């Protein structure tokens, strides 16, 4: 395994673990306000300092990780559960009307400025984590559909697929039994990339007040709170920012490392 993969997995793992641990333990109760202790810079008691309500930032980041990770994970889930079948379907019926409609639909979603539409959706249907998941998820569908179709198309030309067709298997069975297992590597890599993009998108939506609503902590909301405080308490902006950057960086490095590990052909051409 490459060092990139290990380093990336470690970084992302720290925050995923923190999110899980926060269900049973946080250094302080992130919901309790402690006004006398407000705006403290990082110190022995509050390792990452406190916010304008005296809440412990380390605890908020741990609980906020849950929101960011859950939103991103579910959004990627939407993209995969709709995009992969669509891609497989388009590849199985390549050149047909179905293929054309699916691919043109993909182009259309791609053409939309995703953030504008996410803002539109959350603004019209109400701000909140669920609508944020749907808004981010919609834009994951064409990503998975396109990459699935592309990879599946080249597989359909291969001899072992021909053998499966000769043996009388339907397009659906071939897609599920032969195509899907052979493109899993590619999909795993894409999933880590989309996951990291989802975390960035969630942070942006929460930052403008369209994601998770108070009192649910999220990294984007913490940054929105920090904006007016940045001159007197820079740590309020720095800490959640570092959390986002390190998680996204970790996931991206993991994606790179996984690609090298799972796709030996790329490794050969890259070196």
């Amino acid at each position, binding site marked *: 395994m490459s060092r990139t993969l290990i380093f990336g997995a470690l970084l992302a793992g720290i925050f995923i673990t923190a999110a899980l641990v926060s269900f049973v333990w946080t250094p302080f109760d992130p919901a309790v306000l402690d006004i006398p202790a407000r705006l403290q810079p990082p110190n022995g008691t509050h390792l990452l300092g406190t916010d304008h309500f005296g809440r412990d930032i380390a605890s908020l980041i741990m609980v906020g990780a849950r929101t960011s990770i859950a939103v991103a994970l579910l959004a990627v889930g939407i993209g995969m559960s709709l995009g992969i079948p669509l891609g497989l379907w388009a590849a199985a019926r390549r050149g047909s009307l179905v293929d054309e409609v699916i691919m*043109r639909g993909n182009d*259309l979603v791609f*053409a939309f*400025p995703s953030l504008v539409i996410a803002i539109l959706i959350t603004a019209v249907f109400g701000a909140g984590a669920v609508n944020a998941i749907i808004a981010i998820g919609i834009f994951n569908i064409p990503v998975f559909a396109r990459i699935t179709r592309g990879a599946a198309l080249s597989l359909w030309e291969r001899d072992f697929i021909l053998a499966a067709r000769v043996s009388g298997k339907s397009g659906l069975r071939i897609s599920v039994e032969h195509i899907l297992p052979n493109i899993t590597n590619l999909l795993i890599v894409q999933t880590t990339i989309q996951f990291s993009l989802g975390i960035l998108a969630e942070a942006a939506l929460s930052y403008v007040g369209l994601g998770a609503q108070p009192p649910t902590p999220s990294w984007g909301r913490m940054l929105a709170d920090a904006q007016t405080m940045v001159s007197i308490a820079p740590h309020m902006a720095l800490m959640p920012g570092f959390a986002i950057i*390190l998680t996204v*960086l970790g996931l991206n490095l993991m994606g790179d490392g996984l690609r090298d590990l799972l796709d030996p052909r790329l490794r050969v051409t890259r070196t």
Partner: protein
Amino acid sequence: MWRYTLKRLLSLIISLAVASLVIFAVIEVAPGDPASFMLGISAQPETLAALRTELGLDVPKVQRYLTWVTGMLTGDFGTSYTYRIPVADMVAQRLWVSLPLALYALTLSTLIAFPAGIYAAARRGRPGDMGVMGATQLGVAIPNFWFAMMLVLLFAIKLRWFSAGGFAGWDEGPFAAMRSLTLPAIALALPQAAILARVMRSALLDVLGEDFMRTARAKGLTARQALWRHGLRNAMIPVLTIIGLQFSFLLAGGIIIEQVFYLPGLGRLIFQSISARDLIVVESVTMLLVFAVIFVNFCVDLAYAAVDPRLRART
């Protein structure tokens, strides 16, 4: 080339038609009646009905859609419910902030990315390459609005070189206006520059492995000469695509950055209109942004069909 252009044009029109339907439908199902929002909960039913007639809310949906679309085609974007002025005027005013911001950011991003990508490709596998690639990994991971806050902290609050927000206006002269757009443009450009530098590097590396590059070297060109004369031009196709896509991202990303810097651009207009239930503004501005994105992509398609005849033949 004509066939290709016609085909792209047709798909452009279909995309726009579907986009307008989707945007109209989303706004239509939006909860909250603009008329009752404007008049408050104690409004008389007659007043409400009168206002609905005035705003054109009482005609059938299909007719309203057609009125909206034909209006957009002739440059009439409707009249704002809250400000009672033509949406086109509001958009024109805001465009003078959003468009320069996007172009400024695009310029910065290209100016950073090209040298970085070329440098990394020329030094593949050496420390210089790894340094640039490490920096781009970091650049991709940084949320631009967070980076914007850090820029404000450093350059506006600590060093006092720039103002922390607001827009000087073009009346103050281009220098003052560009100055207030500088920090927002840097914040927008950095993550894009990181992506573009990576694309530039990998496109160049692909080209460097081609036979014609070996021929160029065999003719006696140095590695550097071959890179500049033959490598760059051939690496431009993927790079152009990404620049086209980035423009759309910069327009959309501008929405968040405008919030950070309190810039009176299209993004803030959308947010203000959403909270005021001024749906005709939301509808028209969103459609305009979508149009800009689809149109830029259309131009990119045509541009590289012109650059690369093989693409024309394929479609």
